[in-house]
């Protein structure tokens, strides 16, 4: 994959924690290229550095060394303000723990990134309503997170991640806190995003989710150890997963 075709690209990416004998290479020389519209799943055991990598890609952490480019722009050299702007305009996050604001309704959670980006309340609300409809929660717009199921909360989180039409959505164990039915629900949502051309990077340790991606990368001790092209989407393992659940 070349520079011109990558929406997200890293070279020699490294992140260390601790010092001297306590030094840990959480991410150790990762090279990654993600094409526009591609879904990449990164798998690996707990503590292998998957989440740290995702945080580096989204500008939530600064690398110790290496290079990150998003749409051609160097992320690793950006200041805090520029990183914040990048997260507003180019990145959408989906977290395992959903991280919805407890006191805000579904629609208020979804419109928050647009408000932070300075859009008018009316425009933000209209877009949030559309996004909730897109994730199938139009009828739950006025519900607080506490009144939603796990799967519904994660769909609200996905809608929020899409609020500012990001170049890439970074999902960290998006089904880690969900039961099987809710997992299927969220997988179908990701599949629809993939088909709509949304670029996705999904961190997971669930092989069934990984099987829905266009490409599967295995990670161990902070480094990529294997890469596989998969069938992806409902044509692949998701279909089998759905049948199993059914």
């Amino acid at each position, binding site marked *: 994959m070349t520079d011109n075709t990558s929406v997200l690209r890293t070279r020699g990416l490294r992140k260390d924690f601790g010092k001297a004998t306590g030094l840990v290479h959480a991410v150790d020389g990762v090279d990654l290229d993600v094409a526009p519209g591609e879904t990449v799943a990164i798998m690996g055991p707990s503590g292998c550095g998957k989440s740290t990598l995702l945080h580096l890609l989204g500008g*939530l952490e600064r690398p110790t060394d290496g290079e990150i480019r998003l749409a051609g722009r160097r992320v690793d050299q950006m200041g805090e303000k520029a990183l914040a702007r990048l997260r507003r305009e180019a990145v959408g996050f989906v977290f395992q723990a959903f991280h919805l604001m407890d*006191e805000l309704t579904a629609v208020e959670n979804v419109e928050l990134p647009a408000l*932070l980006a300075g859009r008018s309340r009316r425009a933000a609300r209209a877009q949030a309503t559309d996004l909730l409809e897109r994730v199938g929660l139009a009828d739950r717009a006025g519900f607080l997170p506490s009144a939603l199921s796990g799967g519904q909360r994660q769909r609200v989180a996905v809608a929020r991640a899409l609020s500012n039409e990001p170049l890439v959505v970074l999902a960290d164990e998006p089904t880690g806190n969900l039961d099987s039915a809710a997992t299927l629900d969220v997988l179908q949502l990701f599949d629809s995003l993939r088909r709509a051309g949304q670029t996705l990077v999904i961190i997971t340790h669930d092989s069934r989710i990984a099987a829905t991606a266009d490409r599967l990368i295995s990670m161990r001790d902070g480094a990529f150890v294997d890469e596989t092209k998969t069938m992806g989407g409902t044509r692949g393992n998701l279909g089998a997963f759905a049948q199993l659940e059914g």
Partner: protein
Amino acid sequence: MGRILLILRLTVRDLRRRPAEAVLMLLVIGVATTTLTIGLALYGVTDKPYQQTRAATAGPDVVASLQAGPGQSAAPVGVNALIHASGVTGHSGPYPLASTMIRARGRTAYVMAEGRDLAPAAVDQPKPTRGSWVRDGGVVIERSFADALGVHVGDQVTLGGRSFRVIGMAVTAGLPAYPGGLCSMGCASIPASWLHSSTSPTPGLVWLTKPAARSLATSAGSLSYLLNLKLANPAEAQAFVIAHSSDSPAAPILSPWQRILDVDNLVVENAQDAMQVGGWLFGLLAVAGVAVLVGRRMVEQTRRVGLLKAVGGTPGLVASVLLAEHLVLALAAAAIGLVAGWLAAPPFASTGAGLIGTPGAPSLTVSTVVIIAAVALAVALAATLVPAIRAARTSTVNALADAARPPRRRAWLIAISARLPVPMLLGLRLAARRPRRAVLNALSIAVTVTGIATILANYSYLARHFSSGVDDPRIDRINQMMVMITVMLVVLAAINMISITWATMLDARRSSALARALGATPEQVSAGLSAAQVLPALPGTIVGIPAGIYLCDVLRHGALTIPPLGWLLLVLLGTPLVVAGLTFIPSRLGARRPVAEILQSELV
């Protein structure tokens, strides 16, 4: 017994783990109890100096102020009836009392000039503390008035346009010392122009020879007489006054010696009022400060509460541990306040130069101890009870998971905030999440601004009424106290503000991290945290300004004074700026915590 021991053990361990918090609590409650102790300890401190002065000057039991007869040299009306009244064993006077003006060392003041005999009087013989008693061409000045004028023995002064040499300074128990208000005793001859003048209408007292005093009277109306009476039983002075008073305009105005003592007491009573009002303001601030400390602790200690409950602690035990810790600290703060207040009271108990002798030791009665302990316990209880009950009721599972208390939802505030710039959006939503904390914040600011507005109104009052007068020791002292109280209020409010910001920052760490993950800059998050403190400070400021003006009105016994608009605007605009400045560092620290670390910790 075992349960009490367990509570005590847990309490002691918790206090050891949190020494800074314990010290802060001791400080905020201790300041309130110290100030209140000073206020309470000043009761009756003037009694001893007055009695000493009374003994040294053969002080009268009753003083009669009499009007002059039809002619300027005619004898006053009603003298014979009084000196021959039942129970009267001695008298001196009547002495002429003329109202005039004194000029000394470039200062001008109103003065009552009492004409006295050269020979000592059997009743009310003022005692010279410097120089000598009256003689021709000389004037003796009441000591506290001389201090206020800044004159010394040997100086030349002008009385009614005539020059006199200061030959002595003296004290008396027969008239209130400056600036106690001679005219509260019925010196009937104050010219109306005095009351509308920019010079202090409170006259001082000087003694001259009788002819000299009479010669100073510009008209019959500006001359009155004082008659001093000695009774067989001084304790019956009040009854004597009641028995011989009349509503007739020409009747003598009688004052018992207890009335003179009361007026002299005003010097200390003003200080007492200021300290007691300050004490209550500090008490309110302490409630806000302790409540914030307790709230912050609850945020940090949710898991410990869960552990206590998980190992068999009942809700009652959980609440008892929290309450016991703060009640112990409150009692310690009460003890500190009592000792500190008792030690600090003597300078405030000074009765000034108008009396001889030293004030008695400030009283530390059982009732004072009980009041101070009760106030300290009430502060701790008011601040701790709700969080303690809330902790006792917390679900064990939620507490073990260290789940934050669900924030409050204010739909209308969320809707309004969506129309505001990002820092205000974040700030308003943060403030709305914890309304109780916002109220404490507003209360803290309101109390502080009340103190500031009181002192501004007071200065404004002084500038309006005493701009060209002589020094007033009573006003000087109350001003010093008000400045001291205001500085302490500001310091305590600053501590409260930083505590509140820190608590907000801890409580909002997840939502702040999330806002940053969604694209808010650290500056926006930091400004939002500051805005969450500034927003409640605004109503606090708006309430505090009129409250301070009203408080000054009460302290000045009805002299309502509005400070200049510029000063008020400075307070109105300056307070939010100061709050923003105080919250800047904690907010910046809060906004700089790594986002990923906070969001990941939610999974642990």
